[in-house]
């Protein structure tokens, strides 16, 4: 160890020894000597029995209060209906049952504690005493004995001599946990290209999330923010949560000449643009829309995207623009997707590329 080459004199003197460990009064040698434990000072309860009686009554009062509070707890449990609400100043409206149970249970517990602490502080002996400490490390003889025992044991096992046993044993012990690791394989499927695809496909209608009706261009007004899902995805579906986590869409209408990005314009329909609702930072749904600037903001980590400019990131921790969905209108006049997203939606990952 490098520290062992520090000479002893570089270390400060042992605490307590610096001024002589012996307890004594200040002398010529050392004005800072340890005067020893100060004399015990009596409390009023130690010398006045009436004061001690008062303390005893105080402790008993607290314990009695606890008993009453427990009775109160049980009474509240039985008597107060679970749906009753009360107004408590200044907190506001509370569940009456929760309020009563909390106060009574809290009081029942707190007064036990207060009683015990008051008892300890006023009536139990408060004379300070000193205990000796002993070094944690074993004395040299013990150390030598243990080392010798260990060497003897190791020798008797023959582990050092019989290399074949040793090596095969290490081999076996190294391999056996592999079974446990292998067993974890079925925790989940491999990623493959799961994160690259969503339910969107050519011809899928854009369905309004709130009304569950397919959207027409006329349903999307300038300045409004509409959330949409792919046609055929219903809340009761087994995989609804997984699919909506990737397919959620937000739709806004811009003036076509306000769209700065050429691809965005090409992929829009009469100024209606559809972007993934899932933030490219860590996947929160984006839900705040600033009508005047066409900025959208993720409420989780405040990544801000400019929907009039290819949804590029203009502030915050997101690393890339929101993926845009190509949309058009079908023969019946409904908005439809012209394919899946061209790039993975949501947070970036190693294989995203």
């Amino acid at each position, binding site marked *: 160890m*490098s*520290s062992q*080459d520090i000479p002893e004199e570089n*270390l*400060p003197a042992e*605490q307590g020894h610096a001024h002589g*460990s012996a307890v004594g009064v*200040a002398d010529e*040698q*050392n*004005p*800072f000597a*340890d*005067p020893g434990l100060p004399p015990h000072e009596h409390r009023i309860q130690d010398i006045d029995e009436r004061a001690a009686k008062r303390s005893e009554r105080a402790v008993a009062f607290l314990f009695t209060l606890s008993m009453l509070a427990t009775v109160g707890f049980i009474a509240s449990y039985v008597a107060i209906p*679970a*749906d009753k609400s009360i107004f408590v100043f200044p907190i506001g409206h509370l569940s009456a*049952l*929760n309020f009563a149970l*909390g*106060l009574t249970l*809290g*009081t*029942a*517990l*707190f007064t036990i*504690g207060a009683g*015990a602490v008051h008892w*300890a502080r006023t009536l*139990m002996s408060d004379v300070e005493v000193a*205990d*000796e*400490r002993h070094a*944690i490390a074993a004395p040299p003889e013990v150390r030598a004995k243990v080392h010798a025992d260990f060497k003897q044991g190791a020798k008797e096992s023959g582990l050092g001599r019989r290399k074949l046993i040793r090596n095969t044993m290490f081999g076996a012990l190294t391999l056996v946990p592999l079974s446990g690791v292998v067993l974890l394989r079925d*925790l*989940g*499927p491999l*990623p493959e290209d799961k994160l690259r695809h969503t339910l969107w496909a050519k011809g899928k209608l854009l369905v309004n999330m709130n009304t569950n009706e397919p959207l027409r261009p006329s349903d999307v007004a300038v300045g409004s923010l509409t959330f949409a899902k792919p046609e055929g995805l219903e809340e009761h579906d087994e995989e*609804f949560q*997984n699919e*909506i*986590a990737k397919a959620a869409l937000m739709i806004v209408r811009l003036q076509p000449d306000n769209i700065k990005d050429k691809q965005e314009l090409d992929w829009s329909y009469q100024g209606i643009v559809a972007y993934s609702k899932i933030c490219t*930072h*860590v*996947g*929160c*749904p984006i*839900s705040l829309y600033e009508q005047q600037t066409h900025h959208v903001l993720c409420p*989780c*980590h*405040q990544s801000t995207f400019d929907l009039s400019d290819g949804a590029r990131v203009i*502030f*915050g*921790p*997101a*690393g890339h623009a929101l993926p845009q969905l190509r949309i058009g209108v079908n023969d019946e006049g409904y908005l439809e997707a012209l394919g899946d997203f061209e790039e993975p939606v949501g*947070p*970036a990952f*190693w*294989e995203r*590329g």
Partner: protein
Amino acid sequence: MSTNENTESNESRDRGKAPAGERIADWADGRLGIYSLAKANMRKIFPDHWSFMLGEICLYSFIIIILTGVYLTLFFHPSMNEVEYHGSYVPLQGQLMSEAFSSTLHISFDVRGGLLIRQIHHWAALIFLAGMFVHMMRVFFTGAFRKPREINWLFGFLLFVLGMFTGFTGYSLPDDLLSGTGVRFTQGAILSMPIVGTYISMFLFGGEFPGHDFVARFYSIHILLLPGIMLGLVVGHLILVFYHKHTQFAGPGKSNKNVVGMPLLPVYMAKAGGFFFLVFGVIGVIAGIAQINPIWAMGPYRPDQVSTGAQPDWYMGFAEGLIRFMPGWEINIWGHTLVLGVFIPLVLFGVLLAILALYPFIESWVTGDKREHHILDRPRNAPTRTALGVAWVTMYMIMLVGGGNDLWATHLHLSINSITWFVRIFFIAGPVIAYVVTKRICLGLQRRDRDKVLHGRETGTIKRLPHGEFIEIHEPLSQEQLHTLTAHEQYEPAAIGAAVDDNGVERKVKGKEKLRAKISGAYFGEDQQIPKPTAEEYKEITSGHGHH
């Protein structure tokens, strides 16, 4: 026959039947050897200081969490099966939600006292983590982590980190909109890990997010795996506290070789036992009046929905800050994406915590001190350590501010962009400023202690001398105070050993040695600490030629 002998000996000892308690104790001793254990521990001495109860708060809130947690498992269904809600909370009737969410509603509205237990559980968890944070600061700033307690520091550190993850997996269980958003954030952070990210995510969630498995898996982690490990660590932590005996501050009669205080039985049995009830009682009242995590107001989780002002529990706030203040760096190269904007915060999260774990070993390397330390440092007497600690806490706090940047913005009507820029700048600048300021304060306090020892206490009594000069009377300190203020040790900076040995042969000075000399100089060199008064200085001043 042995029974006969026993009875005989008992009779001869007590002339009659021993009291029941004594007989039970004898019975147990014959099988468990409890008397030897009790001999060492029953009257064990514990020193008294308010800061020593911080650890007790953690222990007691941990016990409260276990008690209330067991109760909650009786009613909670860790399942992500979608059900339609038909319970007594009217606003959510008919809504689709997971069984986890609906059973949490059931606990909150239909199980009498269920809401109270849920709130006690959650409040106790917040207090547990806060208690550990403050307890660790106490241990850090007083140097209680030094030999022989480094391993116990690590135990405590692990409890803090595991506590964070137990808390996180716990508040994710109800599958509400807020916690689900937090789980999504975690999944996004996992995805950012190079090479393995997508695999870990698929394996953790049993497929794509959110899947149908994570509540059940988090449940097993939250109620079994992590608390099991933590219980073991808590027991180990306590055994080591008993084994090492408690530290104490310097003072009259207190040395590195003794421990001064009052015995476990009866004083600390009553105080510490009573304190458990105090902590439980306070948390019970808080849970009765202060609502926490009202999941019914947030609604069930949907990956395409979110609420504004989403915040994790406080102890995850600094991770939230790290992820919010980071610029969105992304590198696309050779068909792969390096998501630095998310991955760097993930690494920083680990690094910031790892520094805590390693600090005792770093300091003992710098000082080269291999002795046992049972006397606590006053923070001012270890200025560099104290300054480093405050710098770390400052960085943590800046991250907490960053984690709530939206709340600061809305509540103080500030621009969120400026707050984020403030956090970015002060992530570095804050700790530097804190370091410098703290060190100055420590040195100032050391100077004041030195003045007090050498010149006595300022009495506030102004005296007018015959020739018109006004002086303030200084009163010499008592022997106790003199001792207490001079009992701390001061290290000399480690010097690089001679480059030439006794035989005149040059030896190579290793880079590591130079580095240590440099760090040691920064810790203990000139102007890094105020030399404590020596006996000579004191005698010179008090011998009559002094100023006052």
